[in-house]
Each structure stands twice: as structure tokens, then as C-alpha cells.
């Protein structure tokens, strides 16, 4: 009984290794995002940095390296993700996150330009490895709220939270 399971898990591992194509990204048109107009360049930069944050997150969780969060996350989001990575490492777990699609909408740009909020309906696969053995792979579709703030050279994710559908 265990053999088919091992085969299935190996197959999933192979799929994960192959499935590294960039995610499909759709950005909802933004008519109004609150008190401050959103320039096209700003929107492009925010979305680029947010998608990069997913890549950073993926590497950090797969390798249990919280330092890989540094370029993309800041504040509460970074602290929470880093704590989760520490929990994973303590329990001998690793997780592989592979985002396959993002449906993004900018919903708020603060009046002073210091925070911008996105809603992302994202699809991703999660693979859970315990002691390097794949336990399961799940496909997830979830809605995330992300708040990004500008730093010296880029936008970083400060709040990152899934909300119930």
C-alpha cells in the first residue's frame, strides 16, 4: 500500500521541480484607490515587488531560511513568516510553495504615499515535506491581503494575510 503512495509523492516532487514557470498574472483595472492617485509606474513597481516577494517566500520556506525574506518583507509580515520558518525547522518540516496564478487588485493607496494595499486571489500548490519526505501536495486558491510600504529602493510587504473566501 505504501508503494503507490511513494510513487505518487515522487511524481509530485517531479512536478514541482518542473513546474517553475512564472505565474499567470492578471491585474484588475484601478479606477480609484482612495485618497491618492496611483501612477502607472508606481503600480508596476508595486506589483513587480509583490510577485518577487512570493518568489522570496517560496525559497525561504523551502530552505527554512528566514534570511531569504529580508529583501522582500518587513515589519509584522517578516516577523510572522520568519517565526513560521523557525517552527518548520524545529519540527523538521519544509514546505514548497509554488504560485501559479495571481489575480491582483490595488485597493488602497494612502494619502501620503507610504502604504499601498493589494488584494490577490492567488492559486498555488503547497508541498509538505517532513524529514525530506513528501507528505502531501495541495492546490490552494486563496484571497490574500497585502500591504506594501516603500523602502530605499523598492516596495516591501509589511502585512500579508489570507482571508476567508
Amino acid at each position: 500500500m505504501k508503494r503507490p503512495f511513494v510513487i505518487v509523492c515522487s511524481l509530485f516532487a517531479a512536478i514541482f521541480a518542473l513546474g517553475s514557470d512564472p505565474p499567470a498574472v492578471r491585474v484588475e483595472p484601478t479606477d480609484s484607490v482612495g485618497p491618492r492617485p496611483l501612477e502607472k509606474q508606481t503600480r508596476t513597481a508595486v506589483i513587480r515587488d509583490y510577485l518577487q516577494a512570493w518568489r522570496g517566500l517560496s525559497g525561504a520556506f523551502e530552505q527554512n531560511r528566514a534570511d531569504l525574506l529580508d529583501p522582500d518583507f518587513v515589519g509584522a509580515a517578516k516577523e510572522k513568516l520568519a517565526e513560521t520558518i523557525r517552527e518548520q525547522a524545529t519540527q523538521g518540516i519544509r514546505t514548497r510553495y509554488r504560485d501559479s496564478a495571481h489575480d491582483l487588485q490595488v485597493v488602497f493607496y494612502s494619502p501620503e504615499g507610504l502604504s499601498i494595499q493589494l488584494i490577490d486571489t492567488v492559486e498555488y500548490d503547497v508541498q509538505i515535506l517532513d524529514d525530506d519526505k513528501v507528505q502531501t501536495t495541495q492546490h490552494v486558491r486563496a484571497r490574500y491581503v497585502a500591504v506594501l510600504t516603500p523602502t530605499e529602493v523598492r516596495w516591501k510587504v509589511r502585512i500579508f494575510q489570507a482571508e476567508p473566501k
Partner: protein
Amino acid sequence: MRSRFTFLLGALVITAMPLALAQTGSLHLPGTVEAGSAFSIQSTGNGNAVLYIVGLGQVVKRKVQLGQTVSFAPGDLRSAGHYLAVLVGDSSTENGAFDVTAAHQPGALSFLAKPSRLAVDLHDGISGVVYVFDAFQNLVLATTQVSFQLSGVAGATQTRTALTHNGVAWTKMDSAAKEGSVQFVARVGDAASTRVMQLVPGNPCHLRMSARPSGQRLAVETEPVRDCNGNALPDGTIVTFTERYKGGESTVDVPLKRGVARTDMPAYGGAKISVATGVFVGNEIRWGGER
């Protein structure tokens, strides 16, 4: 092409997976759990298994006995988000998912008030943005009413309320007419956050000087320099006196001291003396008769 192949392969495996695994147990999960609250997960079957609760906000791994209730104490799961629950037994794997939502009670506010220093009497000159969090630093996404209050110097207290959308609320306020410190408070229930802002005088609205002989020279002095609301411009503000006379020009920059600027200039007959601060120009004097 490669991603299409990957997707098809994945779909095939997902379809085949239930057939490959023996279904000896099942998971009964809550639909949603409030962050920090107690909850339980029921499994069926018998034997040993490992339960994984995996999310980006938290990871829990527990050895469990199938058929028994797995209890989570208050505070065990405190990070809001989407969680996978995976029960791995000797011969089966059960999967499920549930959401952890922020606690209803706001616990902290992230309040950004800008600017920290601004001129008096500006319409919508002050902005305040509040992100509402629970006690576990989860963004409270349920609609919440936030009250903003601006008070401190003479003038009526301004109050606004705003509802959060996706955890954030914002407002704009007018700066008061009088200079001084003001307190800008955001409040949600028992949670409050205060920012102190400094209101400074606006642009000068009244700049007038006089001149009198002082020995061989001319002493020029302004009246107290004020903005349009009567606030004295701060000491150190530069006032520029310019004297134009036949064949030359003299300029003297003088900082305000106790609200006035004074200096000596050459006394040329028929000279024109003007005064300005920034782009605001005051009166002009022709020595030998004011104009």
C-alpha cells in the same frame, strides 16, 4: 508548453491519488477559527498518525491517535490565514483546509499621521491612516468604525469617523488657525493611538518697515511679522532689506528676533528701500519721503 504539460500531469495525479490511497480515516475540521481561540479536530479510524497544520503564519505538527479528538488550546493558533490540515497515518493521508480569522476585538492600531509639522489653517492638510490589528497582530478585516480626533490649541476639536475597508481607514483634517502642538488621536473601541503634530505659522501676511536716521546711516526696522491668522513668524525667519540708490544696491539679510528684523543701511539721498521675506514683499520707502 511545459507548464501545460505540468498542469495535465498534476491533474492526472490528483485524480489518481484517491485511488492510490486507502481511506481509513477522515478529518472533521472547523470551517473557520478565530485567532487565539480553542478548537478541536476530530479524526476517525484507528492507529497512529501525524497531524500537520500548515500555513504561512504558523506550522503545527502533532502525533495523534486516530479516532480521538485533537484539541488546540487558546493561543495555540494565533496567526490569521489559510491553513492546510494533513493527517498522515500508516497507510493513508487525509487532507483538509480551514481559515483562521482575526479576533473580533481590536488590540492595536497602526496609525500613520502626516505631516508631523505643518502650517496653520490648511484645508485637508493633515492625513491619518489606520490599520486595525487584533491582539495577535492580525489585520482585522471585518468592517470596523474608527474615530479620529484632532485637538490641542485654541479652536474647536475636529472629530471624524471612518469605516475600515480591508482593515484600513483614513481621514483628512484641517489644521487649526493657531500655532502650537496638536494631538491627533485614532480610536477603535479601547484601542487608541496618539500622534503629536506641530502647527507653525503660515506665510507672512503683514510686513511693514519704518526707517529713521541713525548717525550717518539709516536704521530700518519691521513691525512684528505675522501670518494672516496673526501668528508671529518664528525667530530666525530671514527678512531681506534691499536699498537701491544711484549707481548701486545694498542687500542685508536679517533673521527675525522677537518677531522683528532690524538693521542699519547706508543713508543715500533718494534711495529706495524695500523689504521682503521669502516671496512676500512688504512696503517700500524712498529715503526723504515714504511712498
